[in-house]
């Protein structure tokens, strides 16, 4: 397939939290039969409207100009190894997911971090030890079943503990035995701690297509009411040592700064 930037680029638009690329238009150059299956585009905006030259190193089109209200944009990856390096930006073509009926692909806006910010992050990461955390804030859901299940959980836990659950993504409960159970929604393992040490991972699920939070409610109520019954259902899994955070970059800050400056 040959991608013509002259056709592709005017199809780029953006709105809300994401942006869209009409891949039908992008691939409608007469030589392509896979329209609608390939492109995802990432872009970010500033306050400028500018014209940028775009060079293509493969394909029939060589150069063109695009006027868009974006300072930088890129098409991620490529099944066809098309890769274009502009003066200030990079364009790559990506084999992503698209709506094959409407020929719309979807991307997200996430501008690359500037060198200064990356350097700041590196400095920050060197100022404190890495932290292991199970926290994974609860995401937004449009599934009305899950919304209802969360309402039920709110009723079961009370406001304060429910807020903790939303923030951390799990519920901890101390059973009568003194063991602490860390319960996650869905089919995630329930972790068992004894005096702060992870001793077991138990798997108990609610079959039949229940929303994830219903599964958590079931475990929570069972553990509080009849821990032994819960453990009777559970299948035990091995406990692994937690994955340590990535080893920090050992190079000196001067070396890192030089590299960032080179890239910028």
């Amino acid at each position: 397939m040959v991608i013509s930037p002259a056709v592709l680029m005017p199809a780029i638009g953006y709105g809300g939290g994401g942006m869209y690329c009409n891949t039908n238009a992008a691939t409608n150059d007469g030589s392509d039969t896979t329209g609608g299956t390939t492109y995802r585009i990432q872009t970010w905006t500033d306050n400028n409207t500018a014209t940028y030259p775009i060079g293509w190193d493969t394909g029939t089109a060589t150069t063109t100009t695009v006027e868009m209200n974006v300072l930088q944009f890129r098409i991620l990856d490529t099944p066809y190894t098309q890769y274009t390096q502009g003066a200030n930006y990079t364009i790559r073509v990506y084999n992503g997911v698209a709506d094959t009926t409407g020929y719309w692909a979807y991307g997200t806006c996430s501008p690359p971090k500037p060198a200064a910010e990356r350097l700041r992050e590196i400095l920050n990461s060197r100022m404190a030890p890495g932290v292991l955390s199970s926290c994974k804030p609860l995401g937004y859901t449009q599934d009305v079943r899950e919304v209802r299940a969360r309402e039920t959980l709110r009723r079961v836990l009370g406001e304060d503990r429910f807020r903790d659950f939303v923030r951390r993504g799990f519920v901890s409960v101390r059973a009568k035995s003194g063991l602490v159970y860390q319960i996650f929604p869905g089919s995630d393992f329930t972790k068992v701690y004894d005096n702060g040490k992870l001793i077991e991972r138990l798997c108990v699920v609610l079959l039949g297509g229940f929303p994830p939070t219903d599964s958590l409610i079931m475990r929570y109520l069972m553990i509080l009411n009849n821990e032994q019954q819960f453990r009777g259902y559970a299948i035990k899994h091995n406990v692994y040592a937690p994955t340590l955070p990535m080893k920090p970059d050992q190079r000196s800050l001067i070396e890192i700064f030089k590299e960032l400056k080179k890239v910028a």
Partner: protein
Amino acid sequence: MTTATLREIEVPLVKNSNVKEKIAVPDKLRILEDKEKAGEWERCFRFLTPKDGDKRVVWDSRDMDQIEEAKAMFDECVAKGLVPYRVGRDGKQTSEVMDEFDPEAEEVIFMPIAQVAGG
């Protein structure tokens, strides 16, 4: 006018099966809509269901007829294998399984225990 299907709650009660049994909601009991709150004197049954996530049935604790119907429904649910957990007032945690119907229980969550399995 509510239809007959709306007055039933589908709950999976058979182990290792997707077969769902229907539990009829008595005429005098009310099914709460989303975001609708139970009244001050109303007591609530919550059903965990795959289809709805959560289904709430309420009755007025001052009305003997409704209490009787609630008791009948409670007994039917228990007989079919649902386990009733009492939820404490003001969201206070509780783990109490109810042996018999208590009209003072503010909320009762029915758990389809047949669907619980190790994974």
